[in-house]
């Protein structure tokens, strides 16, 4: 197992290098001049030239790329050309918000999606099946931001149950040792702060979790249906095993394999969805910052953040593969 993980981790390095190069070239192919985006509509050409010189954008592309790699080797990803803040710092500052959101969104999708998919399969053709399939179809087609505005309108503005934006009531003075606000509240024993952070998390998690939830319901349903028709299930039943044992050991264990792959793939979609969700809910996470960076052509931020996200994506997929090995002993030999 350790060798397996090490091999997979070693593979990540060339992938990241390739990605850096691709991203580097692609960013510079985008039309526009970051200095102009920075200085706005009243900038003079001289001012723009000076800023370009300051950030080295007037050097040749290979030269810029080598400089970038040199700094990367020293763990320096440069600073934002818009705010001057170091890319590593701004990522670390915002990452907890994104983790909290992604865990909540994916958690909601998994916790609700697997049972719903299973129930839909067991009651195939029944009203619950139709409802969950229909709802999951809706979950996939409704754009994240639309769902977000709608949820806010209903639960925050009409009903007044939940807040519309932010991670915590700004009038609360809470301490944040980890940056994961719900956990912080629990760790410091500030229960009202934890509860407030949780309330702020519900709607974003629903908006972000909608698509993964829908997909997990459908995959679980299909997978359970398929496994239930397998010969070994019939054999198990013929052996006289109880329904509970068949369900746990034979059906679910096999049916969950494709589901866990899907969850891994959803992690990528989740990070993409986080850009919109964080922006609409003002969560100040990685995604929201990335959104601003795209609008300002903030090369160092874009380059650094995408690299970080790629690393996280690689790690999540590695975890999925490891979970595979846990669920399915056959995968360990590969």
């Amino acid at each position, binding site marked *: 197992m350790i060798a397996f993980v090490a091999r997979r981790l070693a593979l990540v390095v060339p992938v990241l290098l390739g990605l850096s190069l691709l991203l580097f070239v692609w960013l510079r192919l985008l039309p526009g001049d970051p200095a102009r985006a920075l200085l706005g509509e009243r*900038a003079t050409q001289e001012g723009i030239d000076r800023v370009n010189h300051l950030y080295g954008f007037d050097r040749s592309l290979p030269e810029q790329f080598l400089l970038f790699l040199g700094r990367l080797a020293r763990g320096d990803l440069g600073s934002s050309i818009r705010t001057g803040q170091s890319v590593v710092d701004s990522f670390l500052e915002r990452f907890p918000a994104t983790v909290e959101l992604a865990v909540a969104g994916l958690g909601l999708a998994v916790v609700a999606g697997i*049972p719903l998919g299973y129930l839909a399969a067991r009651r195939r053709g029944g009203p619950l099946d139709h409802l969950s399939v229909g709802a999951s179809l809706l979950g996939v087609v409704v754009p994240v931001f639309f769902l977000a505005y709608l949820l806010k309108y209903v639960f925050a503005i009409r009903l007044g*149950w939940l807040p519309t934006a932010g991670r915590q009531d700004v009038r609360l003075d809470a301490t944040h040792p980890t940056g994961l606000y719900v956990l912080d509240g629990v760790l410091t024993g500030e229960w009202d702060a934890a509860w407030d952070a949780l309330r702020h998390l519900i709607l974003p998690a629903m908006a972000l979790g909608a698509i993964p939830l829908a997909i997990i319901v459908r995959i679980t349903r299909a997978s359970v249906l398929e496994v239930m028709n397998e010969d070994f299930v019939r054999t198990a039943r013929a052996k006289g095993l109880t329904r509970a044992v068949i369900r746990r050991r034979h059906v679910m264990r096999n049916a969950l394999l494709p589901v866990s792959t899907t969850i891994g793939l959803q992690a990528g979609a989740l990070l993409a969805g986080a850009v919109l969700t964080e922006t609409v809910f003002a969560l100040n996470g990685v995604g929201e910052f990335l959104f601003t960076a795209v609008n300002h052509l903030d090369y160092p931020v874009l380059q650094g953040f995408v690299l970080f996200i790629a690393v996280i994506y690689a790690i999540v997929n590695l975890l999925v593969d490891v979970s595979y090995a846990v669920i399915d002993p056959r995968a360990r030999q590969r």
Partner: protein
Amino acid sequence: MSPTTTRIRRLIAVAGATGLALAITSCSSERGTQKTAAGGDKAGTFVFAAASEPVALDPAFVADSESTRVANQIFEGLVSIKPGTAEPAPGLATSWSQTDDGLNYTFQLRKGVKFSDGTPFDAEAVCFNFERWYNWNGPLQAENISNLYQLVFAGFKTSDNPALTKSIYKSCAAEGDAVTITLTRPYGSLIPALAISSFAMQSPAALKQYKADDPGASGDVRRNEYSSAHPTGTGPYLFESWEKGQRLTLRANPGYWGGKPKIDKIVVRIIPDGTARLQALQSGEIDGYDLVAPADVQGLSGAGFQVLPREPLNILYLGMNQADPLLADIRVRKAIAHALDKQAIVSQTLPAGTKPAEQFIPPPVNGYADSVATYDHDPAKAKKLLEEAGAVGKTVTFNYPTGTSRPYMPSPEDTFVAIRTQLEAVGLKVNAVPEKWSPEYLERIKAKTDHGLYLLGGTGIMNSADTFLGIFFGRKTVEWGFEDKKLFESVAAARSARNLTEQGEKYATVSKELMDLLPGIPVAHPVPSLALSPRISGYVTSPLAAEVWNNLQIKG
């Protein structure tokens, strides 16, 4: 009991638990409201949503509106703005006078004022600030760091860049309770310029202690210790804390010379998305936000929120690039001017209260001319002019930006559609070229010669035609595509007028000339507005968006 029944029961239990959770949530939120109503800690807090994080708290280094908004609460300049107007008024200086040659300005300073760190505000402190700006060098001379200082004072004591060596500022002399600023050459806009928050007075002790001009560990002067944690001024509020990306907290300054503000605490939080700001106001999480989308104005006022318009200090114009041979013909430009129905453009695409523009500067600005050549909506005359120019049926390129909403240009796509229809009605064909605002569109207009008609404009940073005519027409630019030495010289002469009266007269002449030359067509002065919760009173909007929140009150 069959397994199926158990499962359904479990499902019901889950649904029930979810419902319960939401119900508890709703109770707790009601509890929160009661606490507020009972006069708890929330009552004295004004929560304002900013569209983006302030770049820095040292006002000398920033020009963005969110940084400026915060700086206006912490800092004050020698000159302030009379509330509700764009007029310069006494600030930390109670009065001022100037010599006839326009080279020496003497300011009488307000007595008994202290910076929030307890050090006195005096003549030495004023000179310290002027000398600080003047002596900046190296990276501090970058356009994105000292943008406004360069715009106003034109240069530094020393610079590697020859363009930045011709400073207008020469020296500062402290004489008891007065300060005399000496200039190298006359500059007519000095008084309105000193009301810009970049030129606010900062505590010399704090600037030195926290090394305000040193990049520090962050490597950027805008994020150093002074600028992110110790901004020290004389204003009605004190800096308390700044959790990046979440909130910035200010406290009432108990020692403020104008009396302690009525609100104890201000929280500025960051909500980048416009719809999210609207929803946060509707749900009561924030007390206000700026730049309400025109489409939301009616809904908000209908629901009892305050939507306060600002007198516009801006201009939206239709530029006509004379590098395009078709538009180089004055007859074609005049025909386009007669083809436009500005009133229709305003009523169809711009916020309520907006007035059509006749000049490139808005009416409150010093230098607005009494009368200029006007071009009434007259399609017949437009057609005749096009015929004379042999331009009937010709295709004109029309560049416009997408995905942006500027205070002076809230919905460029709609404005484009309205104008295109009017141009086609007089027999021109329109080749529409939409581009993303930043940087593609700006690049097309400011750096490339292949644009035709285009939409652009600007918002004034001070009550001076410098920030309109001076920036637009001070020299040859790719944007307008024409060279007119006489015009550029008139602008330079107006900029270096000896006093405001003389400057007003000179700019009025320039404004008149411009409407004969017709490099573009002033379209409108769109009205920006600000939304506030009904519980806030005492908010007076300023055309310069330079509102100080010391007179705000929270009801109930």
